[in-house]
């Protein structure tokens, strides 16, 4: 039940019919201007600038106070100096606004007594009036479907990614904007992104719950520094429940231990903050990314591939060296690379030229063409003892024309098994890579990254299978 209430509450943030922008201005470079421009550009609902200094901003009627707006306001965005925020919160309470994003900084994060006092005051006003708050000190929301965009970085500084299925929850605003910009460059789609800053109210747990129910979210990425005190158990419970439905990739920042803690016991001395978070991550069924590269590698494999039902991996390659590298990388990740079973070996020998290697990794060698891959994969993919296939089709090989790509796209649907590829090279490889990825077959630039990503898929699959969920 809580879940539904939460969703109802948070829906106003992502899908408001009307928004008031407090601190809206026409002054170049001001946060209040960028946010207003963002809304004018992409938001389909009604927009109300609020600023006592102006009667009109960027062609829209400007209100002196939010209370003067006759319309009902679903969402308010605050971008004014911190000391003025409490009064605005009181006005919003009077107006009956229930969802507020406070972009402004100058609160607890300053470490000052004044900042702490202001934060407590806005928290109190929010609680007393049942107002849900995102922030303060945050970028707020970027929603690719409804056009809610409080990321106060103009389009020319931060490109907006295309629409997609990834939703992103970030404790760091700077990281959120950098990631979105990077995703835009690489044409990776985003659904919704949230930077929650000081999280005096809406936090990771609420957002996970919201995205779990959100049909536009296929996978959730989290950048987390730390949870609120006492929120750990709820986090594990909710994350576990959400993980049963969609994967959550987490990057935990702040991995070094809290060395200063007085060690009253052995256990306390050993229990670094990160050691405990790692336990929580595991218990919640989250997938941990250890680096920036991994965040995206994991996201793309988890988003596109079906569950992996066991740990037998076959490699089909046109480059012997990459086959060996993959064997090492996959084995190091704990995968089993079985020897090709006798009957399959015989069959492959029969259909392949004699210089091909039929032992796993199956090496079709440099004179291969697309057809040779298709013949082999048609015999591998239907087998129950094959749980995933890594295809290395380096395009430098002259015989590779590209029909293998169409085949892989069809085979993924037909056999319902994870298929990933390694693509190393320049323009031709990039071309193949985009075609594969546009069709839901991830392409990795290195065997090691592919192995790490596949391992994440395997672990997530095992979590889902163990707990009875389905994809």
């Amino acid at each position: 039940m809580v879940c539904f209430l939460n969703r109802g509450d948070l829906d106003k943030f992502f899908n408001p019919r009307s928004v008031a922008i407090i601190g809206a201005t026409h002054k170049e470079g001001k946060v209040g201007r960028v946010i207003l421009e963002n809304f004018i550009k992409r938001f389909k609902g009604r927009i109300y600038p609020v600023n006592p200094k102006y009667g009109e901003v960027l062609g829209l009627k400007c209100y002196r106070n939010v209370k003067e707006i006759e319309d009902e306001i679903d969402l308010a965005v605050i971008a004014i100096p911190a000391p003025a925020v409490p009064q605005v919160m009181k006005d919003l309470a009077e107006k009956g606004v229930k969802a507020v994003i406070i972009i402004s900084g100058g609160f607890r994060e300053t470490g000052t007594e004044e900042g702490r006092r202001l934060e407590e005051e806005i928290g109190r006003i929010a609680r007393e009036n049942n107002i849900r708050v995102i922030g303060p000190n945050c970028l707020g929301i970027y929603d690719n479907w409804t056009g809610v965009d409080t990321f106060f970085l103009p389009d020319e500084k931060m490109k907006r990614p295309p629409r997609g299925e990834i939703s992103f929850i970030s404790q760091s605003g700077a990281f959120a904007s950098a990631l979105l910009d990077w995703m835009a460059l690489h044409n990776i789609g985003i659904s919704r992104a949230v930077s929650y800053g000081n999280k005096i109210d809406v936090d990771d747990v609420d957002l996970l719950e919201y995205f779990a129910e959100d049909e536009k979210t296929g996978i959730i990425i989290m950048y987390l520094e730390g949870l609120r005190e006492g929120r750990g158990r709820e986090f594990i419970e909710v994350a576990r429940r959400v993980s049963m439905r969609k994967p959550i990739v987490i990057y935990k920042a702040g991995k070094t231990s809290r060395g200063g803690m007085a060690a009253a016991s052995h256990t306390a001395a050993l229990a670094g903050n990160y050691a405990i978070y790692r336990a929580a991550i595991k218990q919640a069924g989250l997938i941990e990314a250890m680096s920036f590269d991994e965040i995206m590698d994991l996201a793309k494999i988890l988003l596109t591939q079906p569950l992996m039902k066991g740990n037998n991996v076959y490699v089909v390659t046109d480059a012997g060296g990459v086959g060996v590298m993959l064997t090492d990388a996959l084995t190091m990740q704990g995968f089993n690379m079985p020897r090709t079973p006798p009957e399959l070996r015989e069959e492959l020998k029969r259909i392949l030229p004699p210089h091909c290697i039929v032992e796993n990794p199956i090496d079709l060698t440099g004179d291969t063409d697309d057809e040779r891959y298709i013949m082999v994969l048609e015999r591998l993919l239907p087998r129950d003892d094959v749980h995933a296939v890594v295809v290395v089709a380096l395009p430098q090989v002259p015989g590779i024309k590209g029909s293998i790509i169409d085949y892989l796209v069809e085979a993924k649907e037909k056999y319902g098994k994870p298929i990933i590829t390694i693509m190393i090279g320049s323009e031709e490889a990039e071309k193949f890579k985009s075609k594969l990825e546009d069709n839901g077959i991830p392409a990795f630039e290195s065997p090691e990254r592919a192995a790490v990503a596949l391992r994440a898929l395997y672990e997530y699959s095992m979590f889902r299978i163990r707990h009875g969920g389905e994809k």
Partner: protein
Amino acid sequence: MDPREIVGKALEEGRRKLLEHEALEIVKAYGAPIAEAKLAKDPEEAVKIADEIGYPVVLKIVSPDISHKSDVGGVIVGLKNHSQVLEAAKKIFENVRRNAPKARITGLLVQKMAPPGLEVIVGGLRDNVFGPVVMFGLGGIFVEVLKDVSFRIAPITEEDAYEMMKEIKSAKLLEGYRGQPPVDKKSLAKIIIAVAKLLEENEEVESIDLNPIIAYPDSAVVVDARVILRLK
């Protein structure tokens, strides 16, 4: 004594740390097997207890004012009979009177010596984000130098406890090495779960160290227990 009473009494007396017999008793109350131990008031009672629980035994001074018992001559191990216990008990009281004259003496702990086995450590603490957390590791250099330990957030299942044991890098040692049989993981799991439960049910407990626990092929016993409380 009931766990609540033990904790209540310590807090009443303003003690942040449970006395050793209290600590052992409280973990025992949660189902962890301990090396049998009883508190004696004087050397004569120590002998009586030793006869009761069986030899060999170890004697340890129990005092709220002494945290490093060996430093004041407050521990004597390997006592094999009646007369050795009597003599050792007298000697400990003497040592302590001389080396820590101001210390309040609660009594003398008589504990059954556990035969050698694989030393492991189970711990618990209260984290301000996650609440009760449990830890598992192998004793000695594995925990001290290599910090080879695993954690879980409570509450935990038996399956979690097994996973914790499997997760440490030196997990193979639990399976037995150099011809040794594997240790009794079921007993260890029981101890891990006991620590989790103890923390969950006693908010005043801040951290726990069961170190060492000696594991055998068919059992495991807690030899030393340290329980720290938080004062209000």
